[in-house]
């Protein structure tokens, strides 16, 4: 690539390249996984509605992590004026489209809230002094209003930001970057608040007596990890198979690896902060949550969480060469995605099964559907969009990025 080319010629060069065609088998695999997954989910609903609902909640939170986390990464690039990530930004943009499916899952869950949430049982709440004090916040109507409001806001920002980004492919106008930067600056504080309340609503209220002020940040750290890992996985896979239209250097890979590594540490930091404060203060209404996760076989799941979510990825990504090694990055992205599901399972399932961990086919089919959905979504987006934002004025600098 001649660095002296003007940006215009440069954009033309890329757009004149063949559109990227993934092998059809990928799309078909995606559909098969999705259909099998959805069918199995439907069956699970009739087999054990309660357990199925809990699993659906895990799926919802995972979908939210990928969709909203990816949108956050896109917004972060705009706000920070980051250059290195411009060539790969589209991957996160495509992934953030999974936000569109959020309402579907949320509506199903809202119809099954009675199975999930203690505080929806009015006869129980009345006899409980603490819960009846919380009813102004924890009640059906307000809950549904919040869910609708949050999803509405996320989708609004999703459509606005993605629309500008796509439009820039054709026009190449600088002002669209400016507009997206402003939108992102508005989005990030809203994101911080909504993700906190969403995690409190969906997950913390499973144990309505319990509270942890750091819970939103805890979920956020996992969200960013999941979004980063899924983007990294796709980027590195496309690069290795030769589908990525521009040359991604080790510098790009290193940046992705370093970000993942940073957020692994961030997650551990937040998780430990939450644990230590609860352990130290030793107040019954706070410790109950941790003690539940120390009951029966949950104990091993809890210990496993530390290993899976921190120790293994920490050492696997510690060294500098590891952060730019494509193979290592692929394996660790898959690992981190698994770790995030594990984390959600650890947060959500103890409410369903108090005596010990449960694991069966039901816990497996939901992720299958999720993977299928994301493959199908991504290849659909890939067929209808440029994988690289060819009109973005930062693109050239992004491709020539050196650490």
């Amino acid at each position, binding site marked *: 690539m001649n*660095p002296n080319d003007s940006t215009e010629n440069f954009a033309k060069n890329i757009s004149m390249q063949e559109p990227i065609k993934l092998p059809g088998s990928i799309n078909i695999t995606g559909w098969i996984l999705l259909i099998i997954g959805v069918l199995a989910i439907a069956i699970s609903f009739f087999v054990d509605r309660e357990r199925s609902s809990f699993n659906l909640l895990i799926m919802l939170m995972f979908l939210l992590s990928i969709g909203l986390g990816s949108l956050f990464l896109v917004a972060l690039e705009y706000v920070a004026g980051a250059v290195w990530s411009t060539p790969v930004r589209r991957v996160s943009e495509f992934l953030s489209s999974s936000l569109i499916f959020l309402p579907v899952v949320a509506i199903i869950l809202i119809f099954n809230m009675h199975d999930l949430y203690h505080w929806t049982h009015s006869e129980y709440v009345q006899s409980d002094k603490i819960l009846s004090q919380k009813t102004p916040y924890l009640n059906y109507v307000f809950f549904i209003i919040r869910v609708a409001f949050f999803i509405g806001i996320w989708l609004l920002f999703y459509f606005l930001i993605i629309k500008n980004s796509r439009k820039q492919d054709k026009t190449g106008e600088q002002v669209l970057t400016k507009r997206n930067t402003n939108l992102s600056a508005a989005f990030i504080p809203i994101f911080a608040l909504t993700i906190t309340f969403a995690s409190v609503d969906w997950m913390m209220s499973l144990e309505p007596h319990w509270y942890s002020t750091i819970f939103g940040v805890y979920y956020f750290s996992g969200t960013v990890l999941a979004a980063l890992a899924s983007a990294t996985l796709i980027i590195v896979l496309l690069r290795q198979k030769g589908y990525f239209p521009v040359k991604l250097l*080790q*510098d790009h890979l*290193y940046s992705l690896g370093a970000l993942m590594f940073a957020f692994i540490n961030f997650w551990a930091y937040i998780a*430990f902060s939450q*644990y*230590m404060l609860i*352990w*130290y203060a*030793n107040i019954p209404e706070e410790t109950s949550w941790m003690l539940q996760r120390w009951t029966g076989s949950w104990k091993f799941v809890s210990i496993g969480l530390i290993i899976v979510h921190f120790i293994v990825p920490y050492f696997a990504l510690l060294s*500098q060469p590891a952060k730019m090694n494509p193979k290592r990055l692929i394996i660790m992205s898959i690992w981190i995605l698994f770790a995030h599901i594990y984390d959600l399972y650890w947060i959500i399932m103890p409410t369903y099964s108090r005596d010990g961990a449960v694991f069966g086919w039901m816990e497996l089919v939901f992720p299958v559907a999720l993977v299928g959905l994301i493959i199908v979504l991504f290849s659909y987006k890939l067929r209808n969009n440029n994988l690289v934002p060819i009109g973005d004025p930062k693109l050239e600098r992004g491709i020539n990025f*050196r*650490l």
Partner: protein
Amino acid sequence: MPDKIIPEKILYSVTGIFDHPDEIINAAEQAEKAGYKKYDINTSYPVHGMSTAMRIGPSKLSYIALVFGLSGTTLALLFMWYVSSWDYPMVIGGKPYFSLPAFIPITFEVTVLLASIMTVVAMLFIFFKLPNNSHPLHDTDYMKMVSSDRFGISIQASDPLFDEVKVKDFLQNLGAHHITPIYFDESEISVKNTVFEPKFIGFLLAVFFATAGFTYFSLNYILAWGPFNWMWNQHKLNPQKRSELFSDGFGMRMPVEGTVARGYMPYLYKGNQAAASKYMINPLLPTKEVLSMGQQKFVTFCSPCHGYLAKGDSRLRGQFPNPPSLHSEKVRNYQDGDIYHIITEGQNTMPSYAKQITREERWAIILYLRALQRSQNAKETDIK
């Protein structure tokens, strides 16, 4: 010695400037290929891939970080273990003496602190050779450029392959501009470092004494002057001071005659152990709870002198008139009231514990003491 004219300026190196990080990486690779050993690259920020291009292995600095980081971890843990579970074990917040979760933040901080400080110190003093701060490249246009937005290479004259003309050609071919030789004075690099000069040491000492003196003076004198002493003069009655409020000048008041303070029970047998022995009976039963309360209070208040088993084998032995064993014939035959009286009033060198131990606790201690006595001098009937 060959009769050469010693030039006033000595050639240090030939330098060239590039505009793009790729070019400087290329330049480093070519310099390696050409076999130059003594050359250096100067950039205003770390260019990744440079160490591979220059074929210098990974920096040794990270080992220093590792060693000091791990020392920080162990030192912090050892220190906290020594302080809080060995030298002065103290229960804090009901946690075990050695409670790892509470130690982790400190361990983490000390690890990071020691690793980062020592890395910087090692970098400055080992790798940058501080306090020597002179270098031929200093104060040159070359340095000005590479410290803002250019990338420079400097091939040193001490390299065995060095030849001024050839090196200039070499840089020219790579596309460098501003190709300039750099000269230096002998005096420039043989500057003696000034850190150990008496003047400097004297200056440090002066600063030290000035700071220490000022701190001492301000803490001990200035704070006693108005208006800084407002914390010292408060509107309250200090000990040994005359009260302005009461006509008799006393701040502490006597209780109104014929009354007692709330919750206060006067002791009826002051100075009269015989009556205490005769009229008082232990109101408590030796239940598990009572005995464990008695044990706790005995261990806290009595064992320092009388020993855990009340044998007089205390930790204070030798530092204090030796306290007697409480297993003597005399104490075993004491009524509960006798012991109650001794705890309440004290006996000779043993002080009164009426202030520290509530009435109920005193009775519990007595029951526990009875159990101890029984354990040391069991009756024949106990054996069954």
